[in-house]
């Protein structure tokens, strides 16, 4: 079998169609790189330029006058100074609560067998399987009756719903990846179950748990739909604020500066992910 396929690819290397295919493949990747520039790098550069532009007159390709004055102006706006701490605080509380609820649950999903386990695990996909907006509107109707609209607890609750999939699936896969015999070996040399968990299981799942927690924090920080629907009119998080500033302000720089500030968490996540998380940890979360 193996030798057969070897000769086949060997033959192909000399046929015109194979050369053509290789050529096509190369031009395809070139096309992708160009697209990447147009769709991602280009707008990104524009936003960065705008954030540091005092003046940008047509037809110059770069700002005609650079400066940081809009940074001071934007960051001292009353709505920004209240939204930034609120967003960070909300994201922290939601992440913490989600971790407290989901991490023990994911351990149970990985280590115990209870009726309905598989169905329950799949049910967390439900929040992602349907249009979010519809889900949030129906939740908002319930929240309205419960007087949760426009309150911090209301926003926290709706944002927790958003985190369930990540916080359950990634840690569940991580716990499942820890072979039981590793835990048994520790038990065998005299460790108590609690110590086995702390010194054997936990260190081994820590990269995946950190990834899940960070992803949760960042995605909560950026979450706007739920916060917008449940939080109005009192709660204005950074993403909600960004929407309104971009929609209503003539001065482009305000939106650009806020966008850059909002990039910061995902940039930090990226750096962390590269340094500490193995490439397959996050993808492993979806192999449940």
């Amino acid at each position, binding site marked *: 079998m193996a030798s057969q396929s070897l000769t086949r690819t060997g033959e192909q290397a000399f046929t015109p169609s194979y050369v053509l295919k290789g050529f096509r493949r190369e031009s395809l990747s070139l096309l992708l790189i160009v697209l990447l520039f147009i769709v991602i790098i280009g707008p990104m550069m524009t936003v960065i330029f705008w954030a540091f532009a005092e003046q940008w007159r047509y037809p110059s390709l770069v700002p005609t006058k650079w400066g940081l004055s809009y940074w001071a102006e934007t960051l001292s706006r009353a709505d920004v100074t209240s939204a930034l701490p609120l967003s960070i605080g909300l994201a922290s509380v939601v992440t913490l609560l989600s971790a407290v609820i989901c991490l023990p649950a994911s351990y149970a999903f990985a280590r115990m067998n209870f009726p309905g386990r598989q169905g329950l695990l799949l049910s967390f996909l439900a929040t992602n399987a349907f249009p979010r907006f519809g889900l949030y509107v129906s939740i908002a109707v319930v929240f309205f009756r419960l007087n949760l609209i426009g309150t911090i607890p209301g926003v926290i609750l709706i944002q927790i719903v958003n985190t369930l999939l990540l916080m359950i699936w990634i840690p569940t896969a991580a716990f499942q990846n820890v*072979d039981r*015999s590793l835990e*048994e*070996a520790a*038990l*065998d*040399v005299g460790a108590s179950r609690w*110590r086995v968990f702390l010194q054997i299981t936990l260190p*081994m799942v820590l990269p995946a748990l950190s990834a899940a927690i960070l992803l949760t924090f960042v995605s909560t920080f950026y979450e706007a739909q739920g916060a917008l629907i449940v939080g109005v009119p009192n709660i204005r998080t950074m993403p909600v604020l960004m929407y309104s500033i971009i929609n209503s302000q003539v001065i482009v720089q305000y939106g650009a500066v806020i966008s850059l500030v909002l990039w910061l968490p995902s940039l930090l996540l990226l750096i962390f992910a590269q340094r500490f998380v193995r490439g397959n940890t996050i993808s492993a979360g979806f192999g449940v």
Partner: protein
Amino acid sequence: MATLELVGLTKQFSGNNVAAVHDVNLNVADGEFLCILGPSGCGKSTTLRMIGGFEEPTAGDVRIDGQSVVNLPPNRRPTAMVFQKYTLWPHMRVYDNIAFGLRLHHIPKAHIDREVKSSLEMVGLAGYDQRYPSQLSGGEQQRVALARALVLKPKILLLDEPFSNLDALLRVRLREELHAIQRRIEITAIFVTHDQEEALSLADRIAVMNAGHLEQLDKPSQIYAHPKSLFVADFIGVMNIFPAERRGDSLRIGQYSVKAPANLSADAGISIAVRPEDFSFGAAGRSDSTEPWLGTIDQSIDLGHYRKVLVVVPGLFPDQATAMMHRVKVYMPKAAEAREGDSIALYPRRYLVYADHIQPLEIRTDLTSTDENLSDNLARVAIASEQLANSG
């Protein structure tokens, strides 16, 4: 320094009608090396895990030095286990892997250092203490796992197919080292394996298990020479098994007949088992009364110091196709002439008769032939080299 007793040990997994382990009784003496041998799914690992405390028996008792440990969790049993899978903790260095258990007992650091060092020396890995498991080969990982188990000075060492993931040559080498270590520190060891060669070469005694039952508990030579059940006869070593029927005071196998044991009570469900080395052979026509089985050599395999010959004996079976499928395995001295296609006459020199629910009966037709011990040892060598040839 410890004895082990299993008393009526039974394990029934929930949702399963058949017991995984059924009423196993055995005693292991201080310093003895016992192998539990059986095919996969026979309950041998479950038995070991019940000794280690990882499975809770449905019934029965596990006693170490006469004291029941059946209610203790694994971390409070004086046993240490080496697992089939590589179970070194990947986030700890070799040193910390071995020291983990010692630290739990609040032993001073200098003492831990000394113990870790000497246990690494014992398994031939001195100087490996600062490596991570991922930097070790499979064999090295299992040596460290052995060091990790032994450093706690357990009363009973449990080994669950520890070498089955290693290649054939390394498996043999580690097995020999394990044997030497076990002899030196005189620890009581229980070794689970499906590899009979491993069991025959390591064990003081072998416990053969099948379908949850302990089939036979005996010395390796006894297990080979006197298998107590048809299962053991078939499982240990190479065996020719023929269905037979009783006709008066003889047993018929196809068109041939052999002498029936005098005290055989059964009439049907009889099997006759002949080891490949228990045939005499020659050209047809021997002076004594034994009836020769006439066949054709189908295959003659030179295995170094002896020859394995596969013989088609049409007369043993109702038709030619069945005879082709059940070729008779015969070991011959190397000097013997045996070319493929040659005719040959086989004389079963020693055979065992099995019938339902009775003890096996042994018949020798040629008592002068061999000294039993010598023949057993030859057979063990033969099995070992054949298996090496197969696995290589």
